[in-house]
């Protein structure tokens, strides 16, 4: 019994982000009675699902030593396509086109980075701008209202009281966890991100794995674009703008290192959870959005700084 307690104590000390999210959870439950209401928890679950699904794609990318700045734009264009095309070609084909957009842009990014050898920051920055321009052109610069009952209903659908979007996230979480942990494909992604030269030397098809990373972020982003459109009954060409950097920050705060080769989906879940919990708590406590920005920034800075400082101290 005592040993167990010591074990748990050590775990909480080591996993500071986890412990702080538990503390925050307790604090906000006391501070705001509304927090534990069903409505608010459902809301939180949907937020976690949206950022979490993009986060899963980004986890692959970051473990593989890359990150994708175009995710937000791909979310926007997928939502715009799904909602904009639905009246013309029907819901099914519109959703297929929306998902294909993520696949196509992901492939283009992946090929430019792995085959042409262009820096991934520039490629995904370029496609962030280009794809956003495309989304704005298609939508004519305005949000499009969804006319599909089926899509709108799907956004509010619940299974045993749980938003279906959250369930989708959980399923994807399990699948991604399995892929990363138990398959050769997953282990190779760690290898590519951990030490590119070694991965090359052992005969891995490095270009293939690098390209796959961006295809995955493309597909996950496209899916989120559709889910958001369903939830909000609109496809907006600027929907995804703020999501990309928040997601990258969440993944890193969870403990997946930006230098690649380390991390897992559980950490991403933790990072997304604490970031969304923070936003939710701030909103409930009525903290001004500008002050929220400052606090969020300070949290990102301190987590990354502590993490990096500790790592280097251990290395020495």
């Amino acid at each position, binding site marked *: 019994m005592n040993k167990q307690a010591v074990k748990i104590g050590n775990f909480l000390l080591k996993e500071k982000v986890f412990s702080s999210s538990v503390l925050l959870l307790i604090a906000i439950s006391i501070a705001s009675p509304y927090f534990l209401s069903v409505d608010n928890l459902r809301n939180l679950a949907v937020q976690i699902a949206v950022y979490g699904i993009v986060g899963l794609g980004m986890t692959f990318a970051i473990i593989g030593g890359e990150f994708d700045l175009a995710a937000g734009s791909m979310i926007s264009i997928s939502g715009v396509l799904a909602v904009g095309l639905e009246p013309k070609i029907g819901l099914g084909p519109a959703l297929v086109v929306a998902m294909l957009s993520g696949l196509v842009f992901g492939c283009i990014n992946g090929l430019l980075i792995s085959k042409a050898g262009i820096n991934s920051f520039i490629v995904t920055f*370029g496609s962030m701008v280009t794809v956003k321009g495309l989304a704005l052109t298609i939508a004519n610069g305005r949000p499009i209202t969804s006319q599909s009952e089926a899509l709108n209903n799907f956004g509010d659908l619940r299974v045993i009281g749980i938003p279906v979007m959250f369930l989708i996230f959980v399923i994807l979480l399990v699948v991604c966890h399995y892929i990363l942990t138990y398959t050769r494909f997953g282990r190779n992604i760690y290898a590519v991100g951990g030490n590119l030269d070694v991965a090359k030397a052992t005969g891995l098809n490095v270009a293939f794995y690098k390209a796959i990373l961006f295809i995955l972020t493309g597909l996950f982003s496209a899916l989120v674009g559709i889910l958001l459109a369903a939830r909000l009954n609109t496809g907006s060409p600027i929907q995804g703008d703020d999501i990309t950097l928040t997601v990258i920050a969440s993944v890193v705060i969870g403990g997946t290192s930006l230098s690649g080769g380390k991390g897992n989906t559980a950490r991403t879940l933790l990072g997304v959870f604490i970031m969304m919990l923070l936003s939710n708590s701030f909103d409930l406590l009525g903290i001004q959005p500008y002050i929220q920005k400052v606090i969020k920034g300070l949290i990102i800075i301190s987590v990354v700084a502590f993490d*990096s400082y500790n790592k280097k101290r251990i290395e020495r």
Partner: protein
Amino acid sequence: MEVGTQKLNTSNLKINDFLKKYKMLLVFVGMIIISSIISDVFMTSRNISNIMRQVSVNGILACGMTFVMLTGGFDLSVGSLISVSAVVAIGMQDYFGVAGAIIIALVIGAIAGSLNGILLSKINANSGDAFMITLGSQLVFAGAALLYTNARVLPGSKSEFYNSLGQGTLFGFIPTPVFIFLIITIISHFILSYTSFGRKIHLLGGNYEAARLSGVRVYFYKAIVYSIVGFTAAIAGIILSSRTLGGSPLAGVGYELDAIAAVIVGGTSLAGGEGSVMRTLLGVFIIGVLSNILNLIGLSSFNQMIVKGIVIVLAVWLDVKKQ
């Protein structure tokens, strides 16, 4: 570090060498030729002066960014610093006068930048850390600017001198912001190419361990470059608020990515060590001329984004092929 022109036996190789080294310059010349063919207005003095005005803010920022990126670093917070400087320089004028407000804005820029720098050098940050930490300070500075004005746009300055910084003309022909841009380019180029300070920055980015072992105070240099980019961001913010006649807390949103893109398009490597202010200048003008010609042919701003993103990637692709 500049590699001197190698003596090669055949002239054929020499031409190849030249093409490789000046590819981006050729791209730029090509753009100018094409632009003057498709638009009558492009080569007029009025339009050229327009282009110069438009690139000056990004150009000033990109000069500072060159210092940071030469050390292998990265700064996403400078867009927000532009906003801070814009609102402070305008807001403080009622209390401290124009000169006082400008000095305060510049000092805040340099100090805020050095806070990034000190932290990053304390934790011996790699480029991933720099990305995250300056992303964090981007939020902090943006929040600070919004808090300062309570999310309102401050009305423009009443001072004629201040307004001339962004809109005026010097010596009858050169726009004031362009003049400031030129001065900063020359100073940056001089520092990076002809002083031991500049050589150490190159060395630091090219080979960190070698720099450390040869006695370069790596912590100091790592910190000071962020202070420099903060200072240039403050200048950019002052000019921007003068040109747009108002201090907007969102003035600088997105400028950091434009500056980074200009530096990379110019050919300064993201890994650090290789690059120069002159290359950055080229990158700034390539992006500036591109925006201008897209405007002149009447492309909508949305379509401009499409073309701009593609061209930036293509330009870097051309540059990558030389290696």
